[in-house]
């Protein structure tokens, strides 16, 4: 009997230390990031463009670029994603077509972002002659985030109980009235969560924009969507690996990383709030 | 909460009350008819028995329906069963009044005999018992009901005395033999009516306390 108990204690101790290890890693990570990054961040850092071969100045164009790219990608992916989710949940009938679509979505979700980058480069930039530009970046990132949007929207729509649907239909509503008046309103918090999560994923995405939208350095903001932009993640990569004076720009690197991480954490935090509010309601 | 079962039980109660009132009235009229030797009234009573029978059938049906459809328990169940029993007893009482009325018609053709007034008293007693039993049933009042049970002994005593008296009378007045036999029958009817009233009182105890005092005439035999 006691042996059972001891065994149980040992195993639980191991499990707990595994969890602890995770937290420890995260703590170390954040510790270094914040410790080294916080000093670089200032008002000027946020609102000025880089200067002197990017060794001085701020990261304003990068922030703007990242925001433009991620918001733009959502405009592409949201209608398509929600539409697809509605089709999958409400209209699709069991069969070959559905299987194919599902397979498509699932595998699209697994395509590495670098492959999306290659695709964007070959299709949008080259084949459609969009060049390396915001438009190319938005479309590439939009497609990249499409599966996420479809997935979360589908989940949100599915979590609307079937009985709502039946009730609405039984009251004499048409199918579209039911979707529009009952299903979508209930699903919106879920969809919003998905949207924010996908923005945050897109904002940190580097490989997909390297050869499609991001530019090494541009002192000015782009004036049309056919121009390339700077972006935070790419900026970090550039400063850390390809800059002229890697060690000298280290504080800038930390600062940029911290801004990016802060931005992403903020969005995730909002998403989590929305979700927990929704859960509390149920 | 006020349920439709309660509603239906109230309706059942009304039915039983109606039947009880009819029987009570019939008994009153019977005693009247007997005391006044009123053959017409007696005829009326006999005719009225059908309506009592009809009520019995209705009550039976209602009870069966309630038992089948509502799965009553506790007070409701006891009340329904009590009603079933009471309706049987009341129906029987109706029959007995009709019997007395029948005898009255025969007797009304001849002069009255000396013990008629005693018989009437007995009728009155049984009527009182019936009234009290009905009161106890609908209250429901177990103590009153127990009183009714105890009154039965009085009536039984009275009955024995009357019978003895009538038999003695028969020895002396041979021509009145047939009428005397009728009178014995009437006495017997009244005695039965008080027995049946006792039954109703027993049902009243059953309804209010859930105990069966048949054959015991006291409360405490709960197992």
């Amino acid at each position: 009997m006691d042996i059972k108990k001891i065994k149980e204690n040992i195993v639980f101790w191991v499990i707990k230390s595994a969890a602890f290890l995770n937290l420890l890693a995260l703590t170390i990570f954040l510790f270094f990031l914040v410790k080294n990054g916080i000093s670089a961040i200032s008002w000027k850092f946020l609102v000025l463009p880089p200067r002197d071969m990017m060794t001085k100045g701020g990261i304003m164009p990068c922030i703007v670029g990242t925001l433009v790219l991620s918001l733009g990608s959502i405009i592409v992916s949201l209608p398509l994603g929600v539409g697809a989710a509605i089709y999958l949940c409400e209209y699709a009938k069991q069969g070959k077509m559905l299987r194919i679509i599902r397979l498509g979505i699932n595998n699209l979700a697994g395509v590495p972002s670098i492959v999306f980058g290659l695709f964007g480069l070959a299709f949008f930039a080259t084949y459609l002659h969009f060049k390396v530009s915001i438009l190319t970046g938005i479309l590439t990132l939009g497609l990249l985030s499409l599966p996420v949007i479809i997935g979360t929207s589908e989940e949100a729509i599915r979590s609307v109980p079937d009985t709502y649907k039946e009730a609405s239909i039984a009251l004499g509503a048409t199918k579209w009235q039911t979707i529009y008046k009952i299903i979508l309103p209930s699903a919106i918090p879920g969809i919003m969560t998905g949207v924010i999560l996908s923005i945050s994923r897109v904002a940190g995405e580097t490989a997909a924009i390297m050869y499609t939208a991001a530019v090494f350095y541009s002192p000015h903001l782009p004036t049309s969507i056919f121009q390339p932009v700077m972006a935070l993640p790419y900026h970090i990569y550039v400063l850390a690996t390809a800059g002229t004076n890697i060690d000298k720009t280290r504080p800038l690197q930390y600062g940029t990383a911290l801004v990016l991480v802060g931005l992403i954490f903020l969005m995730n935090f909002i998403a989590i709030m929305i979700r927990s509010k929704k859960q509390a309601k149920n | 909460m006020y349920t439709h079962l309660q509603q239906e039980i109230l309706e059942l109660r009304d039915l039983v009350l109606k039947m009880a009132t009819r029987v009570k009235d019939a008994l009153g009229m019977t005693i009247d008819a007997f005391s006044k030797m009123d053959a017409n009234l007696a005829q009326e009573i006999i005719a009225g028995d059908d309506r009592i029978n009809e009520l019995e059938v209705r009550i039976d049906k209602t009870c069966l329906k309630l038992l089948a459809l509502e799965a009553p328990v506790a007070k409701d169940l006891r009340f329904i069963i009590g009603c079933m029993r009471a309706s049987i007893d009341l129906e029987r009482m109706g029959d007995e009044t009709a019997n007395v009325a029948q005898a009255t018609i025969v007797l009304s053709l001849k002069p009255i005999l000396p013990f008629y007034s005693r018989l009437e008293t007995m009728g009155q007693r049984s009527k009182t018992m019936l009234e009290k039993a009905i009161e106890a049933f609908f209250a429901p009042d177990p103590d009153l009901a127990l009183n009714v049970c105890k009154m039965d002994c009085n009536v039984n005593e009275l009955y024995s005395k009357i019978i003895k008296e009538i038999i003695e009378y028969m020895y002396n007045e041979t021509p009145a033999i047939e009428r005397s036999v009728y009178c014995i029958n009437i006495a017997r009817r009244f005695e039965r009516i008080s027995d049946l009233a006792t039954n109703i009182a027993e049902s009243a105890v059953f309804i209010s306390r859930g105990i069966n005092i048949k054959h015991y005439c006291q409360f405490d035999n709960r197992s």
Partner: protein
Amino acid sequence: MKKRSIQNSISKIIPMPLAFSPLWPFIPICNLRDFSLLLNKGRSPNTQIQGEGSLLSYKTKDNIIKYLFFLCALVSVLVLGLIVYFLFIEGVPIFKVVSFKDFLFGKYWYPTSDPPSFGILPLFLGSIYVTGLSSVFSIPLGVLTAIYLAEIANPKTRSIIKPIIELLAALPSVVIGFFGMVVVAPFLQKYLDLDTGLNMFNAALMLAFMSIPTICSISEDAIYSVPRELKEGSLALGATHLQTIIRVILPASISGISTGVILGMSRAIGETMVVLMVAGGAAMIPESIFDPVRPMPASIAAEMGEAPYHSEHYFALFAIGIVLFFLTLIFNLIADHISHKYKQVGASTL
């Protein structure tokens, strides 16, 4: 249908995102308010169930709407097809230069030397090794943490740690790569006495750090969604908590856990920035875990900038993309298969 309200009502009828959508020209026909008014005009309600010829029956409209949504759903398949198509268009020409077998099993990747050599075996193995090594860290840590969160931690701890783990999943890989480069690499170099801290081991650590959240949160969902009834059923039979976890809860959630593991690995294998920044970038078959490697995504990312358009090098990089694509495809198919075959079990519902 009157013209006046169309523009106005789009925004009322159509959810905001759809109103912005490129599809909006199709949408006015679904203006249902006008439609239902038409349908009911001049009729006392509920007297007849016979439909009458309205301008456009709601059935037609429902059909059109359905069609639109179907097109949305088809986009994913279409894009996947386009991806394959363009990868092949841009990647296949390399096989005019080098045979498929040499490409896959060639031991030397010198795309810029003369003559160039396009053997991706070092890159391929680099990917496999680094992913394998990272799994050694990430699978036990991820799954154990999931067990901790779902079963052992008290609800309050769980409600704090779970979101943190999810936040971790959102960390951009470039930042992780940056961390590996500027913090972990010097540390390793110093304490393990290596030539460079940028090596396979470091990359594996960082990849593990990246994929643990994926593994952990999917596994945790699976474990947590094992019905309470099953757990109580076991405890009520006199099983200890550990016995319950091992004999009932893990078997019941194994499919979710495996899905998480595979998706985590798939994420690691396709990950670019981390390996690009910390793996060291040497295109050779590694001999020890402290050797630098150059996994496939890193090669693509690093060299695409230098490869002239439609050069052999350019084609070769796309060909690596093809390999990478199919590699992850296989992983995804496996995950898909598992999660379908072993559906989550629950208390029976009637």
